[in-house]
């Protein structure tokens, strides 16, 4: 061996030295066998440095060759080649050995002759054959070259299987392939081409979207095999995080990427649009758009539409948003308009946003019909109109508040012309001509009418009628007429017309509608009851007018009705006879009629309440009937309940005589009456006369009774609470709603909804949506049962344990905070009683002096007689809340 001139080292063989120890050789061989070629090379270098003999040099060359082979197997060809050059230069004796490496390099290039030639030798050792097979497995990337290699005979199994695999690779990357076609039974798992067979199955599974099987196949590929070079790219494409080489990246882009690049960018943009700076958001939009276009074109259009509406929501100027989208046009199709409409529905925005939302829904309707989402008339369109009517219902009911908003909208609305700029012709075709916009969508009445036309069903007509009845009573007859035309056999529009007429005291007209209803459905219980009710109302009118002849005819007609004989109704008719006897009969007859009422009801107290209320309704003079003498231990609840329930049944709102309410309060505060319907009727009567303490006590008694009535009595408790008990009120109302929902008591749910509408602002609808658990409901019931005394001052407990708000809202505490003594005299002068509730708030906010001055001013201007309109408060939202 020649000395290395460049290092000036001695020729190792010139100096006698001991041989390399066998255990040192064995150690290096062991490391090589275990593929730890780096350690093997380091160890061999140390040994050679120690001995510097031919034997140690041979050991070092072995280690180098193992290392170079490992580099080639790992596809690190450049590093491998530089190491080959280094070895060749330093150790010329290794030239022969390095030919093996050259064969491997040639094999990589597809020049397989040198590698495969030895396989023709029948005397080739198994060791060498295995080494060649390993080289084929790890280095051969060109199956075509292997199939064509002239070093092997044409019938050689390696050439035949390589040819089959090359065809299969072509097939599997060009179109769908059955697993059967990829079975290759001739390729055993020991074959140097076994990894190719598994790779082809992985590719086929990838295209079939069977990612699980694909991963299984990838895991089975020998990591040192040439086929393993595709594992990372395939794993990336089935959604795993991988670092890719440039060729792999190109493959991924061509065959199909995943969302790993786009996902974090979308998350970042989400955060920026929620609370980041606009400039950053704009930059991120640009980045996201270009990434999405490349990696996920499937959502590109949707993403632009979402970004456009999100940017709109956070107030990014349209020009900036458009420039951020790199000039890509956002398609204003049905999907976009729906997004925009939903964005504008935000309840915290200015009322004008509701009008824009409705206009966007109208655009959605047009585009959705064009795109074939649904037909021009039908359930879907009606649902849209009803939803728009719901939105319009959010606007202040007060015309004075709403009209300026509506006027401004009508004057400025341009039919969203700016959104139609640069749009495709088919979208522009739906743009309303300038100044020709049909603004039907800002009228609830027109929306409801259109809903009925699109989907003529009873529910829609009912809704239209209800709206008209409460907002445009003059039009309700027209709506009921349309309803009758659409459903000629439906008795409900006639009943509505009858009730409307009844409310305006047009009893003859009401009677006419009732007779038409009878012709349609004479057995309908509502119709049957209506005849009795109307006849009674007419009789009451005649009795009031002291028309003896007509009232007698009425009473005879009533008595002839079978429905007047049911339940306690006979007692009511007897009470009317009593009024008639008071007017025109001797005293004995009136006494006898009064006794009839008591006999029929089985209760002196019930009879007294019925006679008192019938006397009030018929406008008999005060003092008729005579006050009832009650025994100290008299039980009133049963009788009063019976009377109140009878009143409700006959369509009259009975009131509890003042003389009885005190007694009744004491009784229900300590005793529980078993008659829940009666109790409920008393409670309602108490609420009518605003006798809140009595209604409160009755609700407590009802809550102690059968759980079936809990929802009703919780609602009564909520209504009877004083205004400062807001938490208890909300708790009772929430629990009542939840129980009513559980019991499917739609009547009660409607009443709760009406109560919320009348008393609370729009926040109520938010609270309404908060569901209560069974435990929470039980807790509310138990706490209400425990609270027997009517609250007069500080709230004694809190349902939710929220102690943040330490301010008590009772009048005494508020006066104290305003610097006035507790229990100071209060009350408003005559004519300003309605300001009583506001007094504490005014004193607290402005101080007693200023409040006094303001009230003096009010008295001077004589405003005390003008009552505030009932309805929801207009929202106090500034122009800054509008993002457009």
């Amino acid at each position, binding site marked *: 061996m020649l000395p290395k001139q460049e290092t000036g080292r001695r020729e190792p063989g010139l100096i006698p030295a001991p041989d390399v120890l066998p255990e040192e050789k064995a150690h290096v061989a062991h490391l090589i066998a275990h593929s730890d070629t780096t350690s093997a090379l380091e160890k061999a270098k140390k040994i050679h440095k120690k001995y510097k003999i031919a034997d140690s040099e041979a050991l070092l060359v072995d280690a180098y060759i193992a290392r170079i082979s490992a580099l080639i197997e790992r596809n690190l060809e*450049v590093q491998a080649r530089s190491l080959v050059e280094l070895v060749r230069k330093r150790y010329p004796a290794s030239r022969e050995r390095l030919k093996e490496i050259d064969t491997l390099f040639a094999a990589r290039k597809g020049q397989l002759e040198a590698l495969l030639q030895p396989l023709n030798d029948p005397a080739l050792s198994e060791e060498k054959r295995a080494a060649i097979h390993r080289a084929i497995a790890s280095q051969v990337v060109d199956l075509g070259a292997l199939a064509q290699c002239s070093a092997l005979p044409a019938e050689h199994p390696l050439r035949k299987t390589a040819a089959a695999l090359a065809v299969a690779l072509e097939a599997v990357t060009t179109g769908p392939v059955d697993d059967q076609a990829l079975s290759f039974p001739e390729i055993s798992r020991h074959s140097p081409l076994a990894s190719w067979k598994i790779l082809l199955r992985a590719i086929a599974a990838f295209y079939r979207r069977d990612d699980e099987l694909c991963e299984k196949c990838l895991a089975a590929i020998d990591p040192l095999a040439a086929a393993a070079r595709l594992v990372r790219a395939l794993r990336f*494409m089935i959604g795993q995080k991988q670092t890719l080489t440039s060729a792999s990246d190109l493959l991924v882009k*061509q065959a199909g990427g995943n969302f790993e690049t786009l996902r974090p960018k979308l998350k970042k943009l989400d955060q920026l649009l929620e609370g980041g700076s606009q400039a950053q958001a704009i930059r991120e939009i640009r980045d996201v758009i270009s990434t999405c276009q490349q990696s996920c074109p499937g*959502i590109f259009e949707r993403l632009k539409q*979402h970004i456009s*509406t999100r940017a709109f929501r956070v107030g990014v100027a349209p020009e900036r948003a458009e420039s951020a989208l790199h000039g890509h046009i956002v398609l204003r199709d049905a999907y976009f308009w729906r*997004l925009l409409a939903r964005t504008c529905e935000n309840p915290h925005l200015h009322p004008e946003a509701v009008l824009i939302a409705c206009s966007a829904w109208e655009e959605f309707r047009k585009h959705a019909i064009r795109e074939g989402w649904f037909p021009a008339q039908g359930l*879907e369109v009606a649902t849209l109109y009803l939803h728009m009517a719901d939105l319009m219902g959010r606007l202040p009911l007060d015309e004075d508040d709403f009209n300026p908003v509506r006027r401004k909208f009508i004057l400025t609305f341009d039919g969203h012309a700016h959104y139609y700029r640069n749009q495709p012709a088919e979208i522009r075709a739906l743009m309303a001509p300038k100044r020709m916009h049909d603004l039907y969508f800002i009228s609830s009445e027109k929306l409801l009418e259109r809903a009925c036309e699109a989907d003529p069903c009873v529910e829609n007509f009912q809704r239209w009628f209800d709206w008209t009845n409460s907002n445009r009573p003059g039009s309700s007859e027209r709506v009921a007429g349309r309803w009758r035309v659409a459903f000629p056999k439906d008795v409900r529009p006639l009943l509505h017309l009858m009730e409307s007429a009844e409310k305006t005291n047009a009893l003859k007209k009401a009677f006419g509608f009732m007779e038409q209803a009878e012709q349609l459905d004479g057995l309908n219980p509502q119709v049957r009851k209506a005849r009795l009710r109307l006849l009674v109302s007419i009789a009451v009118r005649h009795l009031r007018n002291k028309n003896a002849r007509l009232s007698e005819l009425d009473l005879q007609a009533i008595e002839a009705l079978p429905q007047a004989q049911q339940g306690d109704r006979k007692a009511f008719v007897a009470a009317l006879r009593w009024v008639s006897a008071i007017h025109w009969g001797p005293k004995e007859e009136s006494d006898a009629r009064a006794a009839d009422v008591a006999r029929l009801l089985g209760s002196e107290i019930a009879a007294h309440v019925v006679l008192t209320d019938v006397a009030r309704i018929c406008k008999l003079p005060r003092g008729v009937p005579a006050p009832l003498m009650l025994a100290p231990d008299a039980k009133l609840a049963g009788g009063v309940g019976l009377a109140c329930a009878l009143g409700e049944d006959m369509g009259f709102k009975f009131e509890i005589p003042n003389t009885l309410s005190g007694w009744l309060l004491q009784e229900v505060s300590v005793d529980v009456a078993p008659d829940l319907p009666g109790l409920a009727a008393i409670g309602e009567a108490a609420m009518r006369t605003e006798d809140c303490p009595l209604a409160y006590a009755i609700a407590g008694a009802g809550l102690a009774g059968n759980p079936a009535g809990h929802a009703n009595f919780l609602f009564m408790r909520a209504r009877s609470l004083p205004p400062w008990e807001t938490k208890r009120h909300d708790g009772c109302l929430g629990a009542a709603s939840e129980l009513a929902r559980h019991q499917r008591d739609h009547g009660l749910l409607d009443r709760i909804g009406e109560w919320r509408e009348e008393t609370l602002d729009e926040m109520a609808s938010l609270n309404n949506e908060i569901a209560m658990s069974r435990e929470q409901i039980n807790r509310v019931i138990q706490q209400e049962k425990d609270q027997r005394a009517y609250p007069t001052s500080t709230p004694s407990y809190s349902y939710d344990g929220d102690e943040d708000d330490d301010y008590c809202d009772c009048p005494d505490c508020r006066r104290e905070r305003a610097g006035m003594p507790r229990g100071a005299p209060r009350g408003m002068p005559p004519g300003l009683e309605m300001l009583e509730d506001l007094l504490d708030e005014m004193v607290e906010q402005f101080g007693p002096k200023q409040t006094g001055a303001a009230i003096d001013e009010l008295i001077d201007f004589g405003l005390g007689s003008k009552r505030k309109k009932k309805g929801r408060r207009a929202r106090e939202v500034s122009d800054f809340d509008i993002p457009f």
Partner: protein
Amino acid sequence: MTQDDPRQMLGIGPEAGDEEIRAAYLRKVKEFPPDRAPGDFERIRDAYEMLRDPRRRTRTMLLSVNPNQPLVSLLQGQAVARKFTGPAPWLAVLREKKG
């Protein structure tokens, strides 16, 4: 069960019709009977109530879009297109030299 979407709750697709909705409801009731899982049963019943009425169902369908949904949720259910490219780009990866 914590799903808010009634269709998810019953495990049905957006195109499910009356019969499919009813069958899914009955399946779920068997899975969560009222005596053993009253809470779940109530939620299932509410979901069914919402879907069995065509009007409520249509309303849910029309208004289901949430403009404030995270943008990243657009990727849900999106399948990346897997295109047949022929063997060339695959072979390019195999032939690629490292280092």
